[in-house]
């Protein structure tokens, strides 16, 4: 059994960007994709999800357009803008740097300090 993971603040937005970068998705599709990629370990529902989507759209990192869903219904599809692509790249770099530093510190044993 896998334990659900709580996200640090602000990382949900990064995940949404990542999900959208793989191809245009509607809101529910983004949810599904994040859960699918994370192996169902993330609890991202609880209303905070759309807050992240609206915020990203407001900043111009993703762009929403009405289209048709797989079951032929009107749905709003989000895709990454150029600014969003840049943002995702820098966020990823920052995240990797930070986790590497933190992980390195945490991996230290008493005699190595």
């Amino acid at each position, binding site marked *: 059994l896998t334990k659900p993971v709580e996200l640090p603040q602000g990382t949900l937005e990064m995940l949404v960007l990542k999900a959208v970068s793989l191809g245009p998705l*509607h809101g529910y599709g983004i949810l599904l994709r994040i859960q699918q990629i994370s192996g169902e370990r993330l609890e991202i529902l609880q*209303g905070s*999800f759309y*807050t992240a989507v609206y915020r990203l759209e*407001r900043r111009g990192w993703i762009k929403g357009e009405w289209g048709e869903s797989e079951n032929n219904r009107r749905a709003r599809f989000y895709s990454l803008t150029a600014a969003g692509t840049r943002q995702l790249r820098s966020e990823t770099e920052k995240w990797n740097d930070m986790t590497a530093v933190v992980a390195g510190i945490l991996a230290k044993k008493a005699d190595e300090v």
Partner: protein
Amino acid sequence: MNFSGLIRKLWQSRLPRTSRDVEEEFQFTLESYQNDLMDQGVPEEEARRKARIDLGQLAGQNETYRRVMGLRVLDELSGDVRYGFRGLRRNPGFATVAMLSLALGIGATTAMFSLIYAVLLHPFPYADAGRVMNLFYLDEERPDAINFVSLSKPQFDLLSQAPPVDSVLGFRPAEMEITGGALPEDVLGMYLTENAASFLGVRPLLGRNIERSDAENGGHSVVVLNYQFWLRRFGGDPHVVGQTLEINHAPYTVIGVMPRNFAFNDFAVGDVYLLMPAAGASILEYLPWIKLKPNVTRAAANSALEPLVREFSKEKSGRLPEHWHLALQPIIWTFQQEVGRTLKLLLGGVLLLLMIGCANCSILLLARGRARHHELAIRKAIGASRWRIVRQLLVEAMVISCTGAVLGVAASYWLAKLPLLLAPKSFPAESVIRINAPVLAFSVAVALLCGLLFGLVPALRLSRRDSAPMFTARNTGVTSAVAGHRWSFLITAQVALTLLLMATAGTAIQSFVELLRAPLGYDPANVMQVGIRLHFRVPAEWDRVQSREARMTYIEQIRDKIATVPGVSQIGTGTFATPPYSGNEYPVEIDRTVNGEQPKARIIMVDQRYFVALGIPQLQGRAWDQDENNRGDFIAVVNQAFAAKYLSQSAALGRRLRISGLTPRNRFQVTSQQSTAWRQIIGVVGDARNDGLEHPVLPAIYLPYTSVMDSYAQFFVRTQGDPQTYLQTIRAAIASVAPDQQVGNGGLAGTFTLNEALQRAPQYSAQRLLSILFSVFSAMALALALVGIFSLVAYSVAQRTVEFGVRMALGAPRRHVLFVAARIALASTAIGIVIGLAAESYLGAVLSRWMQNTFAVRSLFAAAVLLGVSALLACLLPARHAVQVSPSEALRYE
């Protein structure tokens, strides 16, 4: 819809997505999730529930969207505003006092600002009015007098071409008659040079202004009407342009009407504007308004133009003093000199009033806040942040201040007119008081600032964490006395400011009373000036009085006839002899002059009965007799100031003097045969005001009015009782001698009582204005401060019911309880009075210089006593409730 609702609507229209759009998207997500759950075997009802639990309600989604888009603050604000209004409705007494406190302050401040805006910042309708200068020069011997330079036509043309000058407008006022009707009507004509339209740049209400084309081919007979004249004479006829107006028996075509705010100019407002005549222009005098080129400083213009004016002064000898320099002044300058200081003082006064009003609101909010501790504690308990509570309290304060501002702006519309009514001559005729954009912006800014000012202290205090225990201590009625100390500084400040205002009012009143009591040197009561203007424009009538003898006979005839009116006790005659401003200044030669200084004196033309009629005492010698009056030459009477300055007092009589400037100054004047010859001083009279109320009496020489006769005459009629009631009989008396002779309306040949002339003096009206307005301000301030003290004591008594009950039950004497209840307010009032006294004795010196009067210690202490006594009453009235608390009832609260 309310204001914040409007803002919300506007903001909403800028949102990229509509609420329907947001909801549709969310609806799709909800349904997709629900369908997935049902695919996994969850029953439909269960799936719908789980979807809403995990994702949220459809209705809440728009709120989320709006919060992300930054709209929620506005939503909350409008909630606070509505809550604030509701709170005010629930406490009408509190709301009324708070709003009126502010309305007084904001109304008075707005009124004063609109006045300052209209008078000092933007008084003139003319184009580039800031660059338009009066050609003043400064007499180094009398630096406080205003001196104009007037020019002949060639000089005017030279000045127009001077390098720093953009253009020059020449004008000359002239008394005229509208003829062609039953009786001629006196009007003031204003001649303007042909560049008037382009120079002034004011769009006429109807037709056009005087333009260059009017001067072509020797000039056309055209006339432009003043707005008030147009209303008076033509009843505001919109088709007046093109009609003919007969002025001085010559037809003029009306070409335009100027708008209401055009009142050219401050020398005298013209009724009709005419083209400056070209014929004989070289001897006529032009008064110039000089428009400097942009970016030319006044200093540069002064030094560039001074050589030119020095050249001019050589051409007309004797008019300029020996030591002078050019001092161009913007056209607003004379008004700034006269009223600028007064207005600044008044603005200071209303700002004090506003601060007192704000302090009052703070006290009321704090007092109400204590009653609201319970509500605020609950808000905090369920998670309101401190910032959220401060914001709510501030918004409530803003609601009060904005409502107060609306009332205040409405009131200021009338308040601003008060100074204009009280001192009409002190303000430019053009300045129209109105509520315009800058004034509105000012009052909105003041309202917001006030809300912040008086709302912040209570908001910060009431939102403090440590007030949470109040939740539990509710209604016990025991409050630490320390809590009361925290507001008492507001009372102290209020009292100190009020004392400052009251002391200023006292000083103003005292200066005004001193002005009223200052010796005038004459007795203005029951004396009326009746002026007549001779019909010099009608050649046939003018011929009758053109010679000196004929004119003298005519004037004496009318004088004798007025003297027969029953109730007229004395009557004197003169020209330009009306105090407190009388006489023209001339250089004088005196025999056996010891020092080299050129003596100068006001020459006042009167008859021998003038002194008796005005009650000017004869100190030495005698007045002249009728024969000497008819001859006009060889004799003179001087005032005491002249004798003291230029003659050794004992030997004044019999000395001789000569005024070589006593020659005809215009074609209407006639002089006696030897008006410039030596004259013997036959009498010395007391000093009667001749240079206004604020200046000392100038040396003056009284001469028989027949020495230099003008085209008008003034009769000074002393009557038994109010002279106004004799006006009809006097008119009839004049008509019985000369049926076509009218009695003058205004100006030198006007008809008015000497008391009216006195009240028109600028110093008089300014002092009256200051004392009335400051009395009003300080009365308002006193009322506000008393309300503040009253509410502080009343609230603290209400809060401490139990304490007083216990004190009474334990046998405390009533006097002691009363003292305990009023203690804090009394102490802070006393401190306030002390601070106020200290501040006033520091400021007093500055103020008294500004108000041109001595610092009034007496009025300061009178104000302090009045304030102290009324503050004591305001404390004791509500404190009485403390001793009326019945112990058993008070203890039942426990």
